């Protein structure tokens, strides 16, 4: 697995992350990212297979809430930040892809 990223790989990551990067940014970012990845690669092999991963610092489990209705926002509150709205709905530009 490469620790340095090519410009194309950075472009692919930017696409996955939905960020338009200019050519200049791509040129600028690729080496910076490579340097960072290189340094973080130092942890490879540090923890053996027998070490379990920590996804939560606390040993909590089974935190549930009761199936009881709580107050919602008003539609006005919900839409208060909307860049565009219409008929009490969020108006968004035309969508190209399909749902998944």
């Amino acid at each position, binding site marked *: 697995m490469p620790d340095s990223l090519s410009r194309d790989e950075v472009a692919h990551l930017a696409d*996955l992350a*939905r960020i338009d990067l200019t050519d200049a940014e791509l040129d600028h970012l690729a080496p910076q990212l490579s340097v960072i990845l290189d340094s973080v690669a130092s942890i490879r092999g540090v923890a053996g297979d027998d070490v379990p991963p920590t*996804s*939560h610092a*606390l040993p*909590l*489990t*089974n*935190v*549930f*809430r*009761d*199936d*009881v*209705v*709580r*107050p*919602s*926002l*008003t*539609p006005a509150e*919900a*839409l208060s930040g909307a860049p565009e709205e*219409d*008929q*009490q*709905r*969020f*108006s*968004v*530009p*035309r*969508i190209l*892809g*399909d*749902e*998944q």
Partner: protein
Amino acid sequence: MTTTAHDSVELVDFDAVLAAYDPALGLEVHVELNTATKMFCGCPATFGGEPNSHVCPTCLGLPGAMPVVNGKAVESAIRIGLALNCEIAEWCRFARKNYFYPDMPKNFQTSQYDEPICFDGWMDVDVDGETFRVEIERAHMEEDTGKSTHVGGATGRIHGADHSLVDYNRAGIPLIEIVTRPILGAGEKAPAVARAYVAQLRDLIVALGVSEARMDQGNLRADVNLSLAPKGSGTLGTRTETKNVNSFRSVERAVRYEMQRHAAVLDAGRSILQETRHWHEDTGITTSGREKSDAEDYRYFPEPDLVPVAPSREWVEELRATLPENPTEKRARLQSEWGFSDLEMRDTVGAGALGLVEETIALGAAPQAARKWWLGELARRANDAGQELTALGVTPADVAAVQGLVDDGTLNDKLARQVFDGLFAGEGTPAEIVAARGLAIVSDDGALSAAVDEAIAANPDVADKIRDGKHAAAGALIGAVMKSMRGQADAGKVRELILAKLS
């Protein structure tokens, strides 16, 4: 041999498909739970409501908001898993499925990835008398997305739309996704198996009480996966996934169509494109959606805002005790208990009389007696009146009471039918009718004996024959006695008396 369908898509004759290929089926069914609130917040899960009136910071994905798991949804997930004979995870987590789409407020869906709460189950599916065991790979919890309406295009569909309007009321509604393992060996029955699976899964979900599970309302959704492999090869072909399948009928038709379409592609020496397709019920075809091979990298990782779900084995057993009996298992159990033949059972179910017969037996009637009345006398009357059995106005309690009177010797079959006449005429309870119409079998031995003597005296030739040993001739005398007793005698007893007196 190919036939050409609309849009110049080629299809192979269904029989020809089966001659050359083995189909493999997979079904992904999403069940929308009927909880009062959403999966991760307390917003109402009720349908309807003005747009964006059932949202809060959490289900709207506002910066800073956090999810909290709906315990009732977990309970429903476990019950579904148990009903599908699944293992229930001892410890599992939620995971983020990351992708961008405007109806997803966080641009990730909180779901479960490699740690589903239920796994390794099965469901026996009945298809025209044959049983297919469908293996269930997993059932897991996830949340639904908001809904967009597409504005400005010709069809109201997404393609060609100018912009979209998004309502997040449904964002966060709890869903259980049930995924089968590849269903193999269904052959020509593949379309029927797919349909039967979805229909019977639906029955199961409804019996559990966890969802309305109506495909036409979108609270039961099915995605159909299909691939073909050369007959006997034992391999799996490239599969397509078909969405927008909104009825049981569509499930069957979509499977059939895809089988025919795949075969045409493969016959022509081309490869199946691994993609998601869209079913059109009106035209009966699938169209290409999104190429699945260039699938998004979902970058799954455990949801850090939620802690693991670790259902105790005690809780799981408590929930197991709440499961309703599986319909197929129930039928098998009843048939065995009642001693019905397969045909008798099938006829009972087919007549819609299963529940009625069950209740009648529960009230004391023997199984065969219950069946005899409901499928015989009462079915005939229902037919004549053009009514459903349940609409006749005769209850299982009535039938059990009448049979009880036959059992204790008060009535015989013929008299019982007269009691039913009285029931239809609204004359009261069976006991009241017997009394009012004087239908009870005469129990006075003296009167019976006298009637027998009378009959013997009135028919000396018949009496002689009987004395000579021709007992079959007793029938005429029995008839005479029954007539004079107006049917209110036990024919068997009458015969005994005759023979005793003439021997």
